[in-house]
């Protein structure tokens, strides 16, 4: 039962990275558009999905709290700077996207768009550093608490953060290739193609730093998965590039989406059976089973929420279906 909940937690967080990922990717690309109408078009492409994407994060943390309370406490407080950074990013993007269209003046809008760009970078960087931090282990002591926050300051965590920023940028550009009117999709498709090598380099750098780091090597419990999944990630990026060249944006979007979901699978698989691996005392590492809530709580959550999962997915799918296809000026402009 713990495994099922752990998988569900991973599913929700990975879905958040995939869906929220293109919000932040599009947010990043606002930095390039000097032309206000173009920036408006980018935001319009995300428009109807924006609110529905972020809920995956809130739901993931809800599952974390309900099903893995001990992990929740240590994970969030143990990675304080990364989590707070990501949170600042998420908030500024949420607020910035909403606020940018309220003032009419072009200068105010440009200002808010910069806020959205900064927030997008911060969010991607924070979540990347958190995932990297999990892979390099934490100073979890015998009393069950993670001591201090400086353990996060390593080249590997920074590289992981930057890799997620690069992945998010590719993903956002690919989303726009799929979603903008056909006339504008050409240009953004070229951009997405050019961003793939950047993402490959960033992922490669993070992988190399990880392989060189003693902490990461000691933390990885399943070395096969830890090596295999980054290879799959690279393959996904290559598929995305090939699909972009062949003008198959749907396939490319699936591939970049997979590239954003894979880091979550990598962390889950590489650390298994642990959820948090201690760098100071092997006996203090927290297993998934120990981190989970007790049986009655999991059963209750299972009875109350699992029957509703089809409804959750169904209404999300309804949103994607209603607003499918390229933006065509038929949906109202709000953001």
């Amino acid at each position, binding site marked *: 039962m713990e495994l099922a909940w752990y998988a569900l937690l991973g599913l929700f967080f990975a879905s958040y990275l995939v869906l929220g990922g293109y919000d932040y990717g599009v947010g990043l690309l606002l930095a390039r558009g000097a032309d206000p109408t173009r920036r408006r078009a980018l935001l319009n492409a995300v428009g109807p999905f924006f609110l529905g994407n972020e809920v995956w994060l809130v739901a993931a943390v809800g599952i974390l709290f309900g099903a893995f309370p001990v992990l929740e406490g240590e994970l969030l407080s143990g990675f304080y700077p990364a989590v707070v950074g990501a949170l600042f990013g998420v908030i500024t993007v949420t607020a910035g996207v909403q606020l940018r269209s309220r003032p009419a003046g072009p200068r105010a809008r440009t200002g808010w768009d910069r806020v959205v760009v900064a927030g997008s970078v911060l969010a991607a960087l924070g979540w990347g550093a958190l995932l990297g931090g999990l892979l390099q282990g934490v100073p979890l002591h015998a009393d069950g608490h993670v001591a201090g926050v400086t353990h996060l300051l390593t080249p590997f965590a920074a590289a992981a953060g930057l890799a997620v920023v690069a992945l998010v940028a590719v993903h956002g550009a690919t989303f726009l290739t799929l979603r903008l009117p056909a006339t504008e999709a050409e240009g953004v498709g070229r951009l997405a193609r050019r961003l793939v090598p950047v993402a490959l380099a960033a992922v490669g750098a993070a992988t190399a730093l990880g392989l060189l780091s003693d902490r990461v090597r000691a933390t990885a419990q399943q070395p096969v998965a830890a090596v295999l999944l980054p290879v799959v990630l690279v393959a996904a990026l290559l598929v995305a590039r090939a699909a972009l060249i062949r003008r198959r944006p749907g396939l490319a979007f699936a591939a970049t989406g997979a590239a954003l979901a894979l880091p979550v699978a990598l962390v889950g698989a590489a650390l298994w059976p642990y959820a948090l691996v201690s760098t100071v005392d092997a006996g203090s590492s927290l297993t998934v089973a120990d981190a989970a809530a007790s049986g*009655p709580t999991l059963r209750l959550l299972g009875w109350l929420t699992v029957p509703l999962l089809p409804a959750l997915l169904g209404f999300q799918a309804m949103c994607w279906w209603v607003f499918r296809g390229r933006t065509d000026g038929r949906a109202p402009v709000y953001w």
Partner: protein
Amino acid sequence: MDTLLLARLQFATTTSIHFLFVVVTLGLVTLLVGLQTTWVLTDKPVYERLTRFWGQLYVINYVLGIATGVVMEFQFGLNWSGLSRYVGNVFGAPLAIETLVAFFLESTFLGMWIFGWHRLRRGVHLALLWGVALTAYASAFWIMVANSWLQNPVGHEVHDGVAHLTDFTALLTNPSLGMALGHVASAALLVGGMLMAAVSAWHLIRRTPDLALFRTSLRIGLITAALSITLVQGFGFAQFGPVGAVQPTKFGGGPAAEELIADWTARFGPGDYTPPVLASVGLGFMILIGLGLGLLWLLLPLLWRDWIIRLRFPLWLLLLALPLPFVAVILGWIAREVGRQPWVAYGLLPTEQAVSGVGPGVMLASLIGFSLLLGTLAVTNWVLLAKHAARGAYDPALGRRPTQPPADPRPEPAFA
């Protein structure tokens, strides 16, 4: 400054700011459901315009409110990791249910509602708003279940210092839940009604165009506010009995409180087990405001032949009274939350044992950073609401026809 005090200050700031957004969201969405349903049933254009105008204000408030809610959710793990460690098995469940079955759907529906004008069939579009409102109330319910458990921990057993869930129905029938939920929900409706009445009053005082439209929303807002203040008072006073029985130290001393404190002293060691005086001060002022707002009923007869508009001064009263319910809801939460001290879960987990092990420097930086960020969001929210309220129902961005060019650059709003 120690970590505990900083974490408590941060919780107080975050929760207060978050709740200012919550009351407006919950109150306005209820009124919006009424407006849009009337529009769909009667097909009168004035109700479409009312839905768009109030919907625009609602959406601004909702989206900025999400940001504060996200901080709320993360704060438990960031600052109060002891809470998840010792009582997470029980306390985490209602919060997890809230995110999955309530908030998740609420935001998904709202996104479709905002962008669904002119694209979805009217019935579907209306059903989405009903979905938003119902999930909003479900959200309020589960959050109150979680909060009531902290006030009066029921349905659990403690093994090795960790609480385990034994009886979930006890959480749902918690004596500190029922009346408090009614109190909070009617307070939100009061705020929604007051906001609607006050904004309408401003337009009627300034004699802006759309007199008929704002006359309608003034009446809706005032009647809603008057009905809800009575509910607020009823549910409020009805809480004293059940809450006083399960939390004897909350409303001052008495034999039951002394007995409980003696029991705690024996089990947890000597200490100060009475809540800070701030709790009862907050309660006193809140009751004062609540009784004062009961005077709203005196304005109702003035709706006859529009005397309320002709006399003008009642409009000023409504406008000037707008801050009062907001002050009252904050004071109410101070009474409820500070009155629980020194416990995070009453009689079960002392507050100092729940705080995370991060250093005071990190906590201080987080307190300052988040307070500034959320404070800015709250101020921005109020400025935006005021600006959009002042701009009138002429052409809100929400629900504008895609073929119609946006009225940019819009005329500067005449906001005094």
